[in-house]
Structure formats: structure tokens, C-alpha cells
């Protein structure tokens, strides 16, 4: 399980994810790819009803919005919570579609009961296992987090949390805290025999008796690099394909033009053009 150079051991998250780290993280295309693929797998495990409707989702530990953008690409509406002001600032500069909140997951979610269709979290929740200061008692923080998560999900909804546990104790600590809060479900471990591709997903369900989804790569295989099946809802897919603003330069031009159009139409708040404007947000396979 353990990477020896775990960022979780370096400093508390709001310190570790400083401006420098936030920028590096978001500009690294390898990182973007990994986070996108993890989010796509989390969405698959989230198993939202296949009714073509956009859903309201939470992205817990949303960071600079890499995971959230995959939700947007699939047509969903999301709210993102994160403890790092620097990560959120990058998210906001990149004009992600989700609503952003500065928040510590260990304080419990500030969301009213039964209001959310599903939650994902990509590479964040293991941070709650850290005891950075004596006040940050991990068990208490995990309990508050899972109880409030359970409460804010609507009936039949799921939460899928991709985590990097430091060891088996941490994996058990997170899973147990979730079960004690009332969730059913458990840990799905993809590619358990591969050091490189092994990934942990805590799949949590509110009510219902659905079986835990099947992990990938149980036969000792490695992930295939081909794209998974992608599901889009709302108008997103058709819209993205229309308009012939295919290559990078012309796409930026198109966005800058569209923003200018909005400014002249009197929209007061079109974001200023920046180096992020029209930047490629994710790799398509």
C-alpha cells in the first residue's frame, strides 16, 4: 500500500498543497490523466440511474478541480469542498463549473439532509487519518465526516471515495468508520496484484442491499489503456462535438470570442482571459 514518500507525512494538507504544489499538480499532464481516470472509475462505481438527467454531486477534496471537470464533462452539476485555499484558487482561475467551498472534511459536511444525489472523492480522504495536531483526532474526524456524508445523501445514493491508505490499519479504520455511520458497502480494490495500478475505492451505499461492485483486474491483469465506456447526460455530448472548435488554438479563440460576446451583451462578470483560458482540460482517449 505504502508509497514511502507519502505527502500525508510531509505536512497538513492546507500547508502541503500550497501555491507551488497546486500549480505543479494541475499542470502535470500525467497527474491530470491519472485523476481523470480515477474519477471515471469512481463514476462507474457510483452507478447513477441511467435516465439521462444531470445529477447534483459532491466532490470531496476537490482540489484544483481535475476530478470535478470529469463530472462536468459527463453533464453533472457539482459542489466541491477543499481545505487548501491555494488549490481552490487554481480551480477558480481555471473557471471550473462547480461551486467551491473552503472546508475541512473532518469538521463534518455543511450540507442539509437528503439533498445530494451522490458523492465522489478522489485521493483525499486518507488525509483524515492523519493526526497533525492533538486536536485532529483521526477517529473523531472520520466519524464526523462519515455521519454528515450519510445524512446529506438522498435515499439510495452512493458515495465512492478513492483513497490511498498508508497501510491495512488505515484502510480498516476508514471502512469501519463508514460502516458505523450507517453505510453499507465496502472496499473495492482494482488490480490488487499490480503495484502500479492497484487502487482502493470505498464504495458506500445509503439503504438498499445492492452487492458490492466487482473489482477490476482480479485475474492479475493490468489496466488496458483503451477508453472505458463513457456515459454523458444532459446536452453536454452533442454540444462538445458541435461548432468545429477542435484544435487547441482555435478553441481558445472561440472561448475568447464568446466571452467578448458576453461582455458586449452586458454580462458583468465574464472572467478576464488568462493563461488558463481555453486550456485543454482533460485527455480524451
Amino acid at each position, binding site marked *: 500500500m505504502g508509497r514511502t514518500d507519502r505527502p500525508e507525512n510531509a505536512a497538513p494538507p492546507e500547508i502541503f498543497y500550497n501555491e507551488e504544489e497546486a500549480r505543479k499538480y494541475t499542470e502535470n499532464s500525467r497527474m491530470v490523466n491519472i485523476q481523470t481516470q480515477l474519477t471515471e472509475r469512481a463514476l462507474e462505481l457510483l452507478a447513477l440511474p441511467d435516465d*439521462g*438527467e*444531470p*445529477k*447534483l454531486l459532491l466532490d470531496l477534496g476537490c482540489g484544483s478541480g481535475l476530478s470535478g471537470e470529469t463530472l462536468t464533462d459527463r*453533464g453533472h*452539476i457539482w*459542489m466541491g*469542498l477543499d*481545505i487548501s485555499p491555494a488549490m*481552490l*484558487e487554481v480551480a*477558480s482561475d481555471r473557471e471550473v*463549473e462547480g*461551486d*467551491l*467551498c*473552503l*472546508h*475541512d472534511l473532518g*469538521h*463534518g*459536511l*455543511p*450540507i*442539509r439532509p*437528503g*439533498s*445530494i444525489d451522490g458523492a465522489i472523492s478522489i485521493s483525499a480522504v486518507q488525509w483524515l487519518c492523519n493526526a497533525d495536531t492533538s*486536536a485532529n483526532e483521526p477517529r473523531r474526524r472520520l466519524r*464526523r465526516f462519515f455521519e*454528515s456524508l450519510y445524512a*446529506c445523501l*438522498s435515499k439510495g445514493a452512493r458515495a465512492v471515495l478513492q483513497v490511498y491508505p498508508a497501510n491495512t490499519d488505515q484502510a480498516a479504520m476508514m471502512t469501519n468508520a463508514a460502516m458505523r455511520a450507517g453505510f453499507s458497502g465496502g472496499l473495492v480494490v482494482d488490480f490488487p496484484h499490480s503495484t502500479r495500478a492497484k487502487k482502493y475505492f470505498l464504495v458506500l451505499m445509503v439503504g438498499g442491499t445492492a452487492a458490492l461492485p466487482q473489482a477490476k483486474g482480479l485475474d492479475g491483469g493490468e489496466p488496458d489503456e483503451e477508453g472505458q465506456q463513457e456515459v454523458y*447526460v*444532459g*446536452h453536454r455530448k452533442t*454540444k462538445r462535438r458541435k461548432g468545429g472548435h477542435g484544435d487547441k488554438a482555435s478553441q481558445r479563440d472561440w472561448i475568447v470570442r464568446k466571452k467578448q460576446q*458576453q461582455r458586449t451583451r452586458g*454580462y*458583468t*462578470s*465574464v472572467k478576464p482571459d488568462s493563461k488558463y483560458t481555453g486550456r485543454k482540460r482533460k485527455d480524451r482517449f
Partner: protein
Amino acid sequence: MRLLCHNMLQCHIKGVVNGYPLKIEAEKVETRETDYEPDFLRHIFPRIQWDALREAAAAMGVDDLPESVSEEMLEDESFLKQFHHALLEVHLEQGALVCPETGRKFVVSDGIPNLLLREDEC
């Protein structure tokens, strides 16, 4: 922060019972056009606390939302457009969210509410 987000937020300070809705103090409000998704609006409507949305919208300078609403109105395009605009196009950029029970202020800056608690609040 859009009013959809506001409608779902509640104060999470330990021991607070009536932490909803957070009162909006608006200093700077922005309007940004976004995709109109009637399917999403119909889906989310039953979960919206209408009075909270209406009051929040008024605090943000949008005061054309009807006082009472019903499922039937979701067939009415002009209502859906109003609902869409208030819920998803009006952003609180600067200001504060105030807990109705404790009066605790959560500052909103550059569109991001600061919902971090002090140790004695959690």
C-alpha cells in the same frame, strides 16, 4: 457561489439546531450565463427549499421569483427560465453567509465561502 449551493448549505457548528438557511449578506454579485438544462431543473426542484431560494435571490437583487410554486409550474418555460437564472446564473462573489442561530459569519471571497470552523466550534 451559486444559489443552488446556498440552498444546500447549512451551518455545521457543533450543537447548532437551526442552522438553515444561511442569511446572505451580498457585497458583490455577478451574473454568468450557463447552459439551460430543464431536465436538471425538474429533477432538483422537489429538493429545493423554495422560501430559502426566494429570500436568497432577493438578497442578491433578483426579486422576480413567485412566492409559491407547484410541480405544474415545471411545465411552464418562462418559470423554468426564471428558476434557472436564480439557481445557477447568479453568483455571490463577495459577502458573507450568516448562521441564523448563532449569528456566526462565514465570509465569501472571490466566490468561495470560508466554512472552516475554529476548534471550539467543532
